[in-house]
């Protein structure tokens, strides 16, 4: 038997990248801006999405894809707003990939939709590696997770366009420095747009809404 060596330089995630590009084209064709929302479990993604849908109901038609390992809790919470929602249960996988998104698209009517929020599986590591076809990655970090997270999970901060620092109403009760989070995040990613918010007190939410509307206008004009 002759041993032969085959050179192949091939991106292992190429299959994912290809489907992500198809998704992206599909969104553009429908005039939809898609955002990939990522955070650790319990940072407040679902609450924020619910609140965003209700607050912007007269301005943006929002649909949601919910990614969770198990359960339909999040999809049920979102559907109470009246928005279109599809739940993906990854059955153990720690992230969403482009193909999972692709397969759910037939379950949504994106024609009236302006903004598609894809809520990724709660995890600060793996989701950063898989593009879904989104226009931008938005990450949430809640103050109770601690101000050391940017340097502990740098890739996610590096890949995101927006950082929402959530639960700032808890600041009087915990040892967390917003300044440290901001400083270290910006060192990792100087282009990061940062909002400090609380879904409880509604502080900072207007700025987030304004950003979403402006970004939608910029990326996918009506």
């Amino acid at each position, binding site marked *: 038997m002759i041993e032969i060596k085959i*050179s192949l330089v091939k991106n292992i*995630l190429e299959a994912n990248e290809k489907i992500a590009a198809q998704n992206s084209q599909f969104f553009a064709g429908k005039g939809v801006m898609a955002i990939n929302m990522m955070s650790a479990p319990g940072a407040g993604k679902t609450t924020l999405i619910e609140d965003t849908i209700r607050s912007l109901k007269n301005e943006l038609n929002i649909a949601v894809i919910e990614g969770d390992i198990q359960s339909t809790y999040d999809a049920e919470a979102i559907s109470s707003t009246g928005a279109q929602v599809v739940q993906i249960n990854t059955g153990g996988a720690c992230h969403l990939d482009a193909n999972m998104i692709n397969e759910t698209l037939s379950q949504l009517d994106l024609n009236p939709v302006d903004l598609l929020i894809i809520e990724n599986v709660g995890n600060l590591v793996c989701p950063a590696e898989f593009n879904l076809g989104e226009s931008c990655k938005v990450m949430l970090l809640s103050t109770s997770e601690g101000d050391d997270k940017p340097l502990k999970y740098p890739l996610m901060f590096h890949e995101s366009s927006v950082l929402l620092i959530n639960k700032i109403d808890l600041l009087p009760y915990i040892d967390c420095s917003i300044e440290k989070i901001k400083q270290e995040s910006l060192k*990792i990613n*100087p282009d990061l747009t940062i909002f400090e918010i609380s879904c409880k007190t509604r502080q900072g939410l207007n700025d987030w809404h304004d950003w979403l509307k402006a970004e939608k206008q910029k990326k996918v004009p009506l």
Partner: protein
Amino acid sequence: MHELSIAQSIIEIVTQNMPKHNLTKVDTITLRIGEITQIMPDALHFGFECLSKETSLDGTKLIIETVPVKGHCKTCGQDFVFEDWPLVCPECGQTDIQIISGRELEIVEFEGS
């Protein structure tokens, strides 16, 4: 944990390419993985071993080459290798850095008969 899906993609890519080169068995697959690509080599080896069992790649070894992280400073133009986050230019101290290598996740070659 996403090493499992990476292992699956490796198996798919290589088994799809084997017939083109008339290979029936593959001894080694060489990968190039950037230092800040979030892959644990042990988890990848383990995932590959488990998933390849029922395929023509049963017994194939993965060789992983690590690619160091290189940055390009957008402020002063210096290219440099960096050790740890955050990325700071050793020349001018600025942090507006473009990563030019270290995010690879590639199959470079495979060898068999």
